[in-house]
């Protein structure tokens, strides 16, 4: 049972990790906790579902199209709700409330457009299950975990190696200086939001497929957990988001399996707090060296 | 009388010895300068004295007490105050409030006092305020009491930082490049101001790259290079010290 529970935990954790990557990217560049991320995740899943069911587009096309649409939505969120605040040099919490506004708006808009009930997400391809000595691992679970790892490595490479990645890091550390280096920071930020939102859509669609359901509220808890995961791993650090996500997934599963299902989220948060007390910048976060 | 004595202070950052076995002492009433090339370890030395870092080894005695590894809060309450190389004012607070914060360790009003606005509360507030305005007047900032600190010009901010540090009535005042960004005229004013402070019985330890100021005002000078002390003495000795010229002053000075 322990082994099976671990597998359950890893799958759930991959979902958090996938979402946490988007969180951490946006945080990494703007130091902004983007509370609309959960709603964007939900939106991605819905768009894909609508494309498949209402517009009868084949899955692969629908998948790609949703990434693009959701990515554009992410860009718009930034352009409309956050960019003007940056221009006015507003306190960061203002942006935080703005993203909360976005999330309320999106969630209720989706309800208005497509109803608030839980919807079936069609099983697009049945990959079957791997059955080893009594425990089950579906191939789809492997797909989710694989996607997560691939994205993490890919994005890390982009950020470490490419010019775009460098521009992102520079923008994150000092926007004004970045402009002086010839970096179009607004484009870089837009792109980051595009990427973050598209990643959220990947996560939303994958999870929609895994649980075969989507609903307008699906982003709320996942969003919070993904935020927790990103922080646990050290916010701004991509591998940290993945490790944080997996850890929270596993811990939560074990808590539900062995302690008390009603308390599972409380236990997950309690452990998170415990870890932060020992490592105040998360598992992979680097402490800021004080220097005056 | 010895006010500050640092013995064998060393600070290691990974593979780098930013401060390397430095001995330094300051007598009550002196103005002592700490100079040296960029990255010599001067600011780090200040950070060690004031408890931001604890030394890898060595001991620091201030006013008869061991203070190495103590927190900045504690060091401040023992009577040390400093300014920062990069100005750190409380930007969204008024000039007056900045100075009154400097008095934090010298005042006592607690939470109950404040809520019930007792007589002690009013007395202390009034006294602090008067004192703060008086201090601001010494640098000509008394008219800007109600201004946000962030709205001051650079030079004014530097002055405010010094006044804020003075407000704690320190025994020892540490100044980290106070003249940076000031024009020659303003530097002259500063020179005078520091002398005045000394006349009030406050001991001063100064980091500065403006040699005119340093040579003019210092009783003694310590020179650091690559973390280690390469010279100490009175200004005329330092000015002519061959290794100091080579490492730091250049022929121009």
């Amino acid at each position, binding site marked *: *049972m322990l082994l*099976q*529970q671990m597998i*359950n*935990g890893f*799958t*759930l954790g991959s979902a958090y990790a996938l979402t946490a990557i988007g969180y951490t990217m946006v945080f990494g560049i703007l130091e902004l906790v983007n509370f609309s991320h959960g709603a964007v995740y939900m939106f991605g899943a819905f768009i894909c579902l609508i494309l498949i069911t209402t517009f009868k587009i084949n899955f692969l096309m629908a998948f790609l199209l949703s990434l693009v649409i959701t990515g554009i939505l992410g860009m718009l969120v930034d352009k409309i709700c956050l960019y003007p605040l940056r221009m006015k040099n507003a306190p960061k919490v203002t942006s935080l409330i703005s993203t909360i506004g976005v999330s309320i708006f999106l969630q*209720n808009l989706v*309800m208005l457009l497509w*109803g*608030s*009930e*839980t*919807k*079936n997400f069609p099983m697009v391809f049945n990959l079957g*299950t791997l*059955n080893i000595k009594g425990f*089950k691992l*579906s191939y789809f679970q492997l797909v989710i975990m694989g996607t997560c790892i691939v994205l993490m490595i890919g994005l890390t490479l982009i950020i470490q190696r490419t010019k775009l990645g460098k521009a992102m890091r520079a923008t994150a550390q000092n926007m004004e200086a970045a402009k002086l280096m010839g970096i179009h920071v607004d484009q870089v930020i837009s792109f980051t939001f595009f990427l973050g939102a598209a990643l959220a859509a990947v996560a939303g669609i994958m*999870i929609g497929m895994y*649980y*075969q*359901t989507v*609903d307008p*509220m*699906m982003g*709320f*808890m*996942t969003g919070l957990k993904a935020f927790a995961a990103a922080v646990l791993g050290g916010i701004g650090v991509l591998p940290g988001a993945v490790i944080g996500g997996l850890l929270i997934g596993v811990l*939560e*599963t*074990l808590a*539900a*399996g*062995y302690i008390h*299902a*009603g308390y*599972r*989220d409380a236990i997950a948060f309690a452990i998170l707090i415990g870890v932060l007390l020992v490592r105040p910048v998360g598992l992979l976060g680097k402490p800021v060296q004080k220097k005056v | 009388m010895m006010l500050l004595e640092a013995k064998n202070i060393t600070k290691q950052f990974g593979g780098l010895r930013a401060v390397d076995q430095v001995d330094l002492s300051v007598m009550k009433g002196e103005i002592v300068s700490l100079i040296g090339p960029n990255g010599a370890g001067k600011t780090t030395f200040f950070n060690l004295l004031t408890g931001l870092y604890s030394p890898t080894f060595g001991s620091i005695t201030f006013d008869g007490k061991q203070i190495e590894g103590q927190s900045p809060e504690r060091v401040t309450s023992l009577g040390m105050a400093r300014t920062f190389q990069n100005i750190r004012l409380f930007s969204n607070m008024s000039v007056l409030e900045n100075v009154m914060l400097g008095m934090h360790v010298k005042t006592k009003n607690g939470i109950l006092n404040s809520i019930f606005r007792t007589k002690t509360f009013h007395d202390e507030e009034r006294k602090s305020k008067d004192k703060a305005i008086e201090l601001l007047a010494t640098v000509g900032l008394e008219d800007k009491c109600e201004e946000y600190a962030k709205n001051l010009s650079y030079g004014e901010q530097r002055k405010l930082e010094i006044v804020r540090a003075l407000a704690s009535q320190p025994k020892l005042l540490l100044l980290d490049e106070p003249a940076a960004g000031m024009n020659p005229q303003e530097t002259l004013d500063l020179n005078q101001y520091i002398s005045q402070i000394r006349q009030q019985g406050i001991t001063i330890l100064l980091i500065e790259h403006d040699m005119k100021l340093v040579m003019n005002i210092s009783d003694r000078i310590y020179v650091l290079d690559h973390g280690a002390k390469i010279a100490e003495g009175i200004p005329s000795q330092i000015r002519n010290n061959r290794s100091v010229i080579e490492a730091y002053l250049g022929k121009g000075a």
Partner: protein
Amino acid sequence: ACSQPTSSTNNEKDGVKESITIAVTGPLSGDYAQYGEAFRKGTALKVKEINANGGIDGKEVKILLMDDKNDPKEAANVAQRLVEDKRVVGVVGHFSSTASLATAPIYQKAGLVEFSPTASHPDFTKQGTYMFRNINTQAIEGPIVADMVVNKMQGKKIAVIYINNDWGITAKDNFTNAAKELGAEIVAEETFIGGQTKDFTPTLTKINEKKPDVLFLAAFYSETGMIAQQMKQLGYNIPMAGLSSLFNEELIKLAGDAVEGLYLSTNFFPGDTNPLVQDFITNFKVEYNSEPDQFAAVAYDTMGMMIEAIQTAGTDRAAIRDALAQMKDYPGVTGNTTFNENRDVVKSLKVLQIRDGKFTVVE
């Protein structure tokens, strides 16, 4: 400072026809908006039918629709507003026990009937004489379903998953007590937080270890759908049973063959040959182009009862309460309804099973 809801069209302007206003309140936004939607459709259909037949004594019936987001504070605001709105003669709502309990003191003090189609918390109607409900408390449903599980399904070892709200807890308690009396053993009791928990794999893995004969679900259709699907993915094969809360076509859409064979109880069933039910379904389809579920049905009945009370008592709020309390055998689409002395109802239940992707009555 408060704007008047536009939905309450005040027709004093033509001065010809008088109207009677009944408030309907439930979650029109937020997590539970779909149930509010069912309230809206069910009640509006009833009112449309009444008005088509000349209204109440020639007066047109109007609905004043109010969103409470299923949030107790919002609900209390709504309640305060309604008791002060002199046009309102009775209230159909609120949806959850939480909202209903939070508003009860306000309605009671003002003397306005609060008739909830769905609040099943045992304490609700104890809050005062103006509180009515149109749903079986679990004290009634639990034993019937326990009998179904233990005797029809041969469940000797039963695992239970319940939603962690007042309804889930009372449902679970009433079910397990009855099942134990029938000689069954409860091998696991697991809970989850509604709207929050989406992943049931740890709970299911744990339950599977206990090798139960039946998995009993005190849950709504959405989470039941997820549970069924995740169980299938994990490759577990445990027969499932549930309550009337599961009676919703969406469940089958959602979970497909994963819920095949599931047993449940209900007091509204579209397959019912009763012409009342058949007419309701037909009209509903014409009006909304969708199938009514039990929430729409019970809201329809609740509105019907409210109107009947007004027909007998007139528009005096207190008189309406008395008329409602004395109503006998109201013939509704959710069965014949009479209030007991606590203003609770007792409705007969049918047992259904999902067979070949359809809800089917089990004899």
